[in-house]
């Protein structure tokens, strides 16, 4: 279905090719997962499939890319629109129309399909992706998960043979991600759709993939193979694979069910030891408080009657579906917007009334798009400005950045950094004034495994120093690794609040893979298991 013959691609002014002599063949009806660290050419590879690279990006492409016999050399992306559907990383930026139904019909209108056909396909797609209730809603008012599903639906209606998705689940809560992936699997199985998707959250997608393509970058050739083959040697792997390596399971399990079948002996070995206990709640006055907080937008109650206390040294994970009020709660603590009812306090003060300069010494919030915080021309410039504006000794931010992540190029524009580097820079400018309360909104979106590792280390270190950290996240593996406490929100209300271990193990949606495999014992991470086994040995 998709063939790459000796494809090399170099961006304009780039010193080295992004793709070099890529040979690849993806068959019809495969669900193919593309993995690799950020900035190694995953997105370039995906965009080459429908000719956006090089028709849209510029640069020099040699070799030949064909899709169903059509070469991208003589077909522009629009001439492949009936064959390849592409969904980008940020669905909301790619919407052309303004209402769900129109967006679903847009590609078909361009293809010149008959109105009756369009009507039927739109109805089918609304059902397939569960968008029926929002069909007349403006796209701007949808939650992230809904937007992602609309973006997928909008290319599906053209009944393409190939679907290309760049990080389709990174913005979604676990259940919504599961749903999107299940819908994709169903299309692959039932109608022979070929799906190529790039994703960092391996634990979500590996069980669904038929084949994995690893993009190592730096001119090295691609590693392709069945999921089990690639996972056996891959440096990045979901927790289930790491657990399997630890316990020497063969064949390598990729799904929870396969793993559970082999996990009997491991569960027996672990029977003698208990997972780490629940740490006692810190004894101090709370750092951040919300009392009977209510936040209303024009016609929706985003937060209703939420009372929470966050203590120093805690890492609190705010979980819940897309649109359950997590970001709104963070924004309240950061002093953005006034509560409709109740009150919020940070260190006993109302964050909304604090002057900006004072506020940043108390609270730091890193929004979902960390790049929003950065305006400097270069990384160095950003650090210098941050020092000057916050009245810190020159070099403070720069040193903090170096400690957070070494090797962030000082002369790069923040926009040109990788996702992990950008987050590091944002963390540095936010943490430099020394806020005691750090709020993170989806910190692992788009982060590759090495960056995530570093983030975990940092969070643990900062919590150890007495900072309070609250993060809104869908990443259950991150929660399993760092959170001391988990709060689950639903429709603006707190439905669960307690030690992370108890909360996540309680719910099949929020439990990490290790917990699912080793249930009913509440083990959360591979490290814990390894430590316990080490103790046994």
């Amino acid at each position, binding site marked *: 279905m998709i063939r790459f013959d000796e494809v090399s691609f170099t961006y304009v002014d780039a010193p080295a090719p992004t793709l070099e002599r890529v040979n690849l063949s993806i068959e019809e009806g495969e669900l193919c997962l593309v993995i690799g660290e950020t900035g190694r050419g995953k997105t370039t590879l995906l965009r080459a499939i429908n000719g*956006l690279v090089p028709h849209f990006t510029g640069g020099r492409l040699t070799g030949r890319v064909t899709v169903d016999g059509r070469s991208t050399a003589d077909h522009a992306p629009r001439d492949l629109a009936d064959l*390849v559907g592409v969904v980008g990383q940020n669905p909301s930026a790619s919407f052309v129309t303004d209402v769900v139904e129109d967006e679903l019909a847009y590609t078909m209108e361009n*293809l010149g399909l008959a109105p009756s056909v369009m009507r039927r396909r739109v109805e089918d797609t609304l059902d397939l992706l*569960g968008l029926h209730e929002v069909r007349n809603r403006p796209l701007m*008012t949808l939650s992230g998960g*809904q937007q992602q599903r609309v973006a997928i639906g909008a290319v599906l209606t053209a009944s393409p043979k190939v679907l290309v998705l760049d990080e389709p689940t990174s913005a979604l809560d676990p259940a919504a991600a599961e749903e999107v992936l299940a819908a994709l699997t169903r299309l692959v199985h039932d109608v022979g759709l070929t799906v190529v998707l790039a994703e960092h959250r391996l634990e979500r997608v590996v069980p*669904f993939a038929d084949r994995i393509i690893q993009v190592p970058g730096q001119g090295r050739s691609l590693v392709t193979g069945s999921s089990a083959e690639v996972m056996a040697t891959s440096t990045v792997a979901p927790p289930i694979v790491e657990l399997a390596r630890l316990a020497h399971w063969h064949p390598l399990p990729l799904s929870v069910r396969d793993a559970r079948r082999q996990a009997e002996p491991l569960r027996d070995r672990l029977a003698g030891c208990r997972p780490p206990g629940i740490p006692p709640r810190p004894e101090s006055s709370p750092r951040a408080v919300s009392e009977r907080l209510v936040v209303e937008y*024009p*016609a929706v109650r985003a937060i209703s009657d939420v009372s929470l206390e966050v203590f120093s040294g805690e890492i609190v994970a705010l979980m819940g579906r897309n649109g359950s009020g997590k970001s709104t709660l963070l924004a309240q603590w950061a002093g953005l917007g006034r509560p409709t009812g109740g009150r919020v306090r940070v260190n006993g003060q109302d964050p909304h009334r604090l002057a900006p300069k004072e506020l940043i010494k108390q609270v730091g919030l890193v929004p979902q798009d960390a790049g929003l915080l950065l305006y400097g021309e270069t990384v160095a410039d950003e650090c210098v400005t941050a020092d000057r*504006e916050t009245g810190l000794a020159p070099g403070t931010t720069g040193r903090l950045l170096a400690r957070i992540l070494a090797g962030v190029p000082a002369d790069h524009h923040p926009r040109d950094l990788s996702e992990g580097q950008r987050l590091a820079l944002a963390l540095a400018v936010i943490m430099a004034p020394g806020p005691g309360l750090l709020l993170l909104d989806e910190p692992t979106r788009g982060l590759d495994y090495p960056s995530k590792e570093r983030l975990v280390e940092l969070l643990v270190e900062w919590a150890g120093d007495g900072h309070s950290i609250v993060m809104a996240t869908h990443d259950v593996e991150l929660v399993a690794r760092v959170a001391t406490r988990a709060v689950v929100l639903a429709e603006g209300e707190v439905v669960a609040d307690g030690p992370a271990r108890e909360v996540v193990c309680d719910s099949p949606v929020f439990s990490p893979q290790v917990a699912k495999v080793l249930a009913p014992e509440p083990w959360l991470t591979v490290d814990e298991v390894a430590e316990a086994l080490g103790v046994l040995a």
Partner: protein
Amino acid sequence: MTVRRRASGPRRILHPLAWWLWALGLAVAAFRTTNPLLLVLIATVTCLVVVLCRSDAPWSRSLGLFLRLGVLVIVIRVVIQIVFGNRLPGHVWFTLPSVELPSWAQGVSIGGPVTAEAVVSSFLLGLRLAVILVCFGAANSLASPYRLLRCLPSVLYETGVAVTVALAFAPELVISIQAVREARRLRGRPVRGLAGVRGLAVPVLESALDRSLQLASAMDSRGYGRNRKLSAAQRRLTTMVTAAGLLLVVAGVYGVLAPGSLPLSGLPFVALGAAGIVVGLVLSGRRSIRTRYRPDVWGGPEWITAVSAVIAVVAYTLGSRFGTGGLTYSAYPLAWPTLPLVPMLGTLAGFLPALVAPVPDRPRRLPRTGSGPRREDDRGSRTGTASVPTASLPTASLSTGSTPVDPLLAPRPPVVGPAPDAIPAAADPATGIPVTGNVPSVRSEAVR
């Protein structure tokens, strides 16, 4: 707002062209008068109709923006008059210190006596412009530019897209300004004042550029601009007809401007040329293969709305033609304006659409919690779909597993609105997207 729901079907909204015609009619009316009473009446009717008929969509809030813009226009107009304006005679309010200007700047004056009459006239001119702005703001609130674009004939479609993308830039800008302001506050930077504005411009423009690039690539990969291949002969014919039409128009315009140079003062040339251009456009429109999904319907309410616009225009035109008076207000002498009957009735006709236009679905207001227009919760819609008997989505099995039922996972009845209509189960032969049937169960275990 409890009265009208005479529209049938789920998606009946007034044709966008009708709204724009209506707004245009009122704007033309406003343009023809300087009577403050009439202007205020037009603005009131416009705003009332918007408030009664708008949906909850984000663009429907743009009226507020235009209102503020209108006030700004009035203020600027009056301030300029006070500082630089012509020194009109009349009752002097106060005198500004005047500045002597060199002889080449004759005709411009700075400072000097400010008369009530001068301020009132400039206020009225500003008010007129402001009311026209409000009319366009109203059209924007009631029918998004996107929807207007859908009505364009296919020849003009591509040009239309360029215009709409440009128009859509404004709301995007508002959203992105909001985001940048919040981010600045998080960095402890000033959000107000000159420094705030300067800090806003660069990131906002950057993100706008970013977005337009992403949009362009999305449109390209979704088939925008796909055309039928025309034969060489057809293409040549199209080019020749259009070029000839353009030449004729140029010649005709010359004839109009220089009388006697061409027979019948060139008008036939203009007409012929225009016809040529239209034929050229139609011919090139044959390249387009674009079809339309659920085109907007033009029915009774649309006719009434359009007629109300015509009534307003006619009333104001008649008013000025037959000198019923009162349309133009002169500040000499300063007196309370009168309200002429015909234009007033014409303006009130502008209220007709509010009586006939189908009201778009508006979500119920608070204190109902749950799904609303903003950030609706995903699960709400998900459970909604799970209750559609034919579409058994894979995750529906989530909640029926043997695991203890978590409050989060328990299916909840949809919060707002009736249960979704059952959709006939059928696999579309063309898409092959099946509506029935279960997911292959092989891989759904990862959920548990």
